[in-house]
């Protein structure tokens, strides 16, 4: 008999969002909604804690290991807390030829962090990305896995950082984490 662990429940909104995905698959294959479920949780909290992954497993009636495996397989699921904004610069050939390493250098010096690190104010995390399928507009900066900034230059970067900085400060950190 193991001692009882503290169980975190998913919020009703998240459950609702997951339910919509569950409906898309045959009822006996709820596990198909793991990917979507992880994405929904990550969007809500910024990252995936062990407890939330376990809660998702419970919600989908799966062994927790099934969820851990999926979450660790894909590099875009964050299993450790990261900054408010995730900045990812494409490092593949087209972007590389168009000077993505200059962009990274600029980002590193502006933010005062190295690749993969998070700024001390918890606003930005710098990542490298594989091809984002937008080679015509290289180099590409991707923010939070969603927003693309095309043909970025150090000037554009400065603008983007300024915008994000202000927006981030206004909103404050998402305290849900």
């Amino acid at each position, binding site marked *: 008999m193991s001692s009882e662990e503290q169980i975190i429940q998913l919020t009703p909104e998240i459950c609702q969002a997951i339910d919509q995905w569950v409906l898309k698959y045959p009822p006996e294959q709820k596990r198909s909604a793991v990917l979507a479920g992880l994405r929904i949780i990550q969007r809500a909290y910024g990252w995936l804690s062990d407890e939330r992954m376990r809660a998702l497993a419970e919600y989908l009636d799966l*062994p927790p*290991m*099934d969820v851990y*495996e999926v979450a*660790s397989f894909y590099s875009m699921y964050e299993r450790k807390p990261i900054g408010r904004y995730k900045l990812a610069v494409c490092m593949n050939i087209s972007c590389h030829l168009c000077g993505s390493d200059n962009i990274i250098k600029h980002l590193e010096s502006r933010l005062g962090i190295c690749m993969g690190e998070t700024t001390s104010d918890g606003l930005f995390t710098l990542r490298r990305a594989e091809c984002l399928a937008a080679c015509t507009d290289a180099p590409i900066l991707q923010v939070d896995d969603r927003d693309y900034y095309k043909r970025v230059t150090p000037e554009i970067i400065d603008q983007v950082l300024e915008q994000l900085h202000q927006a981030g400060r206004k909103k404050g950190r998402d305290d849900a984490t």
Partner: protein
Amino acid sequence: MIKFEIDGKKIQAKSGSTIIEAADAAGVDVSHIPRFCYHSKLSIAASCRMCLVEVENGRKPLPACATTVTAGMKIYTKSHQAMQAQKEVMSFLLINHPLDCPICDQGGECELQDLSMGYGRTSTSFIEGKRSIKDKDIGPLIATEMTRCIHCTRCVRFCSEIAGLRELGILGRGEHSEISTYVEHSMQSELAGNIIDLCPVGALTSKPFRFKARAWELRARAGIAGHDCLGSNINIHIKRESDSQPERIMRVVSRTNEKLNETWLSDRDRFSYTGLYHADRLARPMIKQIGKWQETDWETALTVATQKLQNVIAQNGAQAVGGLISPNSTVEECYLFQAWLRSLGVPHIDHRIRQSDFDHQIQSPLVWSTCKCVQSLEETTSFLLIGSFIREEQPLITSRIRKATQGGARVHVINPVDFDFHLTLTNRCIVSPWGMVCSLAAIAQVLFGNDKKKLNIMPKPIAELIRQQKPNTVEHDIARDLQQDKAPLILLGALAQAHPYFSYLRVLSETIAIEIGAKTLHLTDSANEAGAWLATALPHRRIDGVSIKEPGYNAKAMLAKTLKSYCLFGLEPTYDSAYPELARTALQQAECVIVCSAFKNKAMLEYADVLLPIATHLENEGSFVNIEGTRQSFQRSVNKPFAEARCGWKVLRVLANFMGRPGFDYQTVLELSSELSRNLENDLQSEHIPPVDFKPLPTVSDNTVWRCGYWPIYRNDSLVRRAEPLQVLTVEQDLAKLRLGAALATHLKVNNGDRVSVSSDHPDAKPVTLQVLIDQRIADATVCLPSGLPDIAINGPLSVVRITT
């Protein structure tokens, strides 16, 4: 059947079988296909690619484990293409595998080592850095060295498919993938040790065995596991005597027996050997003289034992002596024990130390109901499980049932605690111990309705009980499912056996079984309960099967009646008995207590007068009768049991000799076995068995609180209780707490962490103070407090208890 060719030899195989299955069935003479991830008992992963073979007209080599044979197929396992493919795969597997065979415990019995001798290259072209993975702590049983892992995923598949608990998984991907529990914790499965055998490399090895010996210096002896009624077949690995150490049992591994344990072994059977050389082990005979213990030789100890016992008999008659034998003793020991005591005129002989209700004993069959075939459990489609923490009691039988549920079988449970079985349960009645009887009666009512004819032929109190019931929906569902199924199986577990209304449970389940054409099966939590019945280590039956007119005391009465002398064999009554409090008082007051035991404990040193060291089942010779009713014999694995200990049958034989009993002249255990067999072959006399008086129904008030005192898996017998790695797991489980449901907690006005006193429902009972833990799995009006724990002695594992806050 399909005809095809392997390496030019014509072979037949069942349609649908894979190449590797067909090749294995044809035998090594035909071909041997190398493999890592393939295992005949697990699903197919085809991830290692070691079994690539050439198939005629195939574009490229195909994995033999995942390719089904077709008619006329021509397979080449040794062709240039096949060998080339296998060699390339091997060089990939060796890229990240460290060259640390000398310090690897798998060295000498490693599949990767063996195959790399055949398929590996002498040098590698890989010059980049090797990958290394942090080791995981997955508990006290399994040592990990994850850098050695080749990702065959056998362990992952074992956990999810056989153990029913997906504890291991592959995390990450590509070069970063690793086998892990993700959140670090001890593995919970009671079958986890099997992944040590499954691992083809040294990534998962036995922690207690770590670095202790090498495979090539061990000698294997066949044995039978002695901790549950399955009788798993084992190999005992022994290291020869050296200048620095006497002969020692180094480890236990499974021995394949498709009928019983397949290739698996429960952790209890695998790791119990670690208790063999515990400090508590009795090395030499001991006698107590003027309150002081002293070690002595056999001659003196036996003389003292004889004198003391004869004194008691001379003064008080043989009626004043009681004999209790462990149901984990061999058939031969049980037989000799009762023969020796009966030759002295002692009527009180019993092995049923955990039973509370003996009312029905006279009507019990000669042998516990056995199942013809454990394998057939997999084909059963409906189970009713009554009073059993089956996952802990019978780990491997549970895995058979699990397999059945994976095929769609339904399992219904009547238990006082919602135990986690790691299998899908269809219906569960979680009710108090008395509620279990009522639930079963309710099921009977659904089945019989108010059929007066049928109810009238039943014993009165039982018919009355059935009439009283108002079945709920769950009971309706269970009854209907059992009725609709062709051959359902009713399983009675150890908790049912320890139940104070066991006779009710028994009669009810048998009545139900007859009504619906089901079979009943008793799952006893000891190795040789069936054998002990056969050898009549019982107060009410002679060896020829005839009932004794005036039976002696049963195990409970023997302790309650406080006799002058007790002979204990292989028992620690303060842990093993259902009545530890009674046992302690009875043994303390006795004039003479002779104990044959492999281990001593504190209480034993207080009450015993003579301690005679005997062999444990791993060192012993004899036989066990398992759940199938099969008598499995085993020979001594070591030349000599630990220190001065002797095989139990020899001790009993010599005791009889010392007491001048004629007829105890067995030279070998075989002579004894054949005499026993002759006795068992005698035609059993059919006799009239008088109807049994059932005890009246209990009065259950709102304030009645029952206890569920199951024996935890690693507190079940003396040897397991000494096995330190297993005890670590027991400590982790934090069992010494009073668990109860929220409703009862509110009723008693207690909270988590409060301390309360618990005692059995007897005016003189000594209370035990324990912490409360609220646990939703416990039935109403029930508290869960396991038996067999140190310093917690409460009579009656399923009786009414008193709780004072």
